[in-house]
């Protein structure tokens, strides 16, 4: 554990990350790094191991091998593998889910407030007795949640239950929930899945605005190539869990290995 130092200006570095399920190597020796305030795309064909890599970073899966260095809110660098899954958000690393994971019965506002779970300091007893401190805390975070919802333009619906809202709105609610913890890095798992063209164009705008307003880096996995090419500063392509290429959107588009992975190899290439 000698190299706990993460280069200045980087927020995350994966080092030889590997995980296998049975005999299948879902992620194999993957390394990449993300700069602060960078929008970073992770692409690859179906089953390339993108989501698995996500789950390893956020500790939903425990990688078999490798290190994940992360610079937290206070500038301290640590190896994410040393933290249990529920502590990851405290460092300033937060994620969304491929299939929106919201609580149907709760209002949109309450769903967003779940994102502030770690910011509540008052004890259970104080909450039960509704002491002034607990009340003030709730009011303060509620105002913050309303602010985030206003920023994303869905504050008018905040008292409606999340269940039954259109998919585009739910995606935004999930985004709002991640913003409650003042993140350093947001991980978006297929944010454009299920959105129509106009919503996707808007999403690109939103992602950039979030980066500028909150000063955080964004890591996204996405199938919608227009979005990825439009919004990302840098892209990493993987296939069968293995690193293929990293570079700017233009470089990735021109890369022979990436083209082969997406379109299939031809005889001449071999």
């Amino acid at each position, binding site marked *: 554990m000698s190299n706990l130092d993460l280069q200045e200006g980087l927020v995350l570095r994966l080092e030889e990350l590997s995980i296998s399920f049975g005999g299948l190597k879902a992620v194999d020796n993957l390394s990449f790094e993300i700069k602060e305030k960078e929008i970073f795309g992770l692409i690859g064909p179906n089953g390339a191991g993108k989501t698995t890599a996500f789950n390893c970073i956020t500790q939903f899966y425990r990688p078999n091998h490798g290190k994940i260095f992360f610079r937290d809110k206070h500038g301290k660098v640590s190896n994410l593998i040393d933290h249990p899954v*529920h502590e990851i958000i405290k460092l300033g690393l937060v994620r969304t889910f491929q299939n929106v994971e919201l609580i149907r*019965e709760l209002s949109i506002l309450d769903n967003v407030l779940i994102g502030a*779970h770690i910011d509540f300091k008052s004890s259970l007893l104080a909450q039960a007795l509704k002491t002034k401190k607990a009340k003030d805390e*709730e009011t303060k975070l509620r105002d913050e949640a309303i602010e985030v919802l206003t920023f994303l333009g869905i504050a008018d619906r905040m*008292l409606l239950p999340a269940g039954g809202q259109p998919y585009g709105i739910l995606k935004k609610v999930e985004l709002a929930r991640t913003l409650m*913890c003042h993140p350093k890095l947001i991980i978006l798992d297929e944010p454009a899945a299920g959105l129509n063209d106009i919503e996707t164009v808007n999403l690109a705008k939103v992602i950039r605005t979030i980066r500028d307003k909150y000063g955080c880096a964004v890591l996204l996995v996405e199938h919608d190539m227009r979005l990825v090419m439009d919004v990302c500063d840098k892209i990493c392509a993987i296939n069968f869990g293995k690193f293929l290429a990293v570079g700017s959107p233009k470089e990735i588009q021109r890369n022979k290995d990436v083209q082969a992975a997406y379109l299939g190899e031809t005889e001449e290439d071999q």
Partner: protein
Amino acid sequence: MKLKRPSFIVKKNAHLNYVLFGVALCLVPLLIELGLLRNSYLTLVGSVIIYSVAAIGLNLLLGWSGLISLGTAGFMGLAAYISAYATVNLKLPFEIAVLLALSIPLAVGILVGLVSLKIEGLYLAIATLSVSEILRKSFEEFGDITNGFSGKTASYPKLLGFFQLDKYGTYILLVVVLVGVMILIHNMINGQMGRALNAMRGSEAAAQAMGVHLLKYRLVAFALATSLAALSGILYIHFIKYTYPPTWTLGMSLNILSAIIIGGVRNIYGTILGVFVVFAVPDLFLKQIPYFGAMPGFAYIVNGILIIVVIMYYPYGLIYLGNDMKKLWGKVKAKVKP
């Protein structure tokens, strides 16, 4: 799917409503004194209050956290016997007995929770069922403490060592405890704790990603449910003044469970309505029905049918029947006016 659930509207004067509800319950002794209600109704309403305390605890577990415990009766019985033994045999003050009867079941509950909650929720059901059965068997076997099948008696509580409550006084105490529990649980479920429990039930992955420590919150929910079951057992022994092992069977746990499903999952008033339907309606109405009323298992049949009907048409419980009535009434009024 046309499930409507208006519970996200947090009523501003919810606390006042709970207190008013308590005041209304306190009118029962008055009505009996005035001869408007039968004497036996006090025990009936008192029992509903007692079981409601345990049911609210179980609702916290089942409704909000999505975990199932089948051991409610065991923990209730344990607390009842401890409180009886401490006040009658050991001659300890009521307050000390309450403390003992709360902390011992809680300790047992936390042990069971620690072992079973690490894995998935279903294991809690299995573990609590076994513990409950072990406890029930112990009530039969440890005759020195429990008096076995002859049953154990206790008296109305004596507060602070000198304030001896009578039947009505104890009833008022039940109401005060119930209203207190309602307010405390209301505050908890409308704050951070409630959101964490909801998140846990709705999506474990999202809850963890948002920093909810699953084992911790499962344990807290289970500990609260166990404490409320124990509290309910204490109230039982000092109001009914008698207990014997066959009271604390799986049947009791299942009755409380069905009360929640019938009355209202994730709804405090609904829980009480459910307890009323399951525990009071058989005595109040069903026994009056000719022929069927005399059948020993008739209440079970009615409850079973009710559960099926409620799950089909009111998946969030009978308490939402009121909303539909209001809507219907609005429609009728609109039709009559023009």
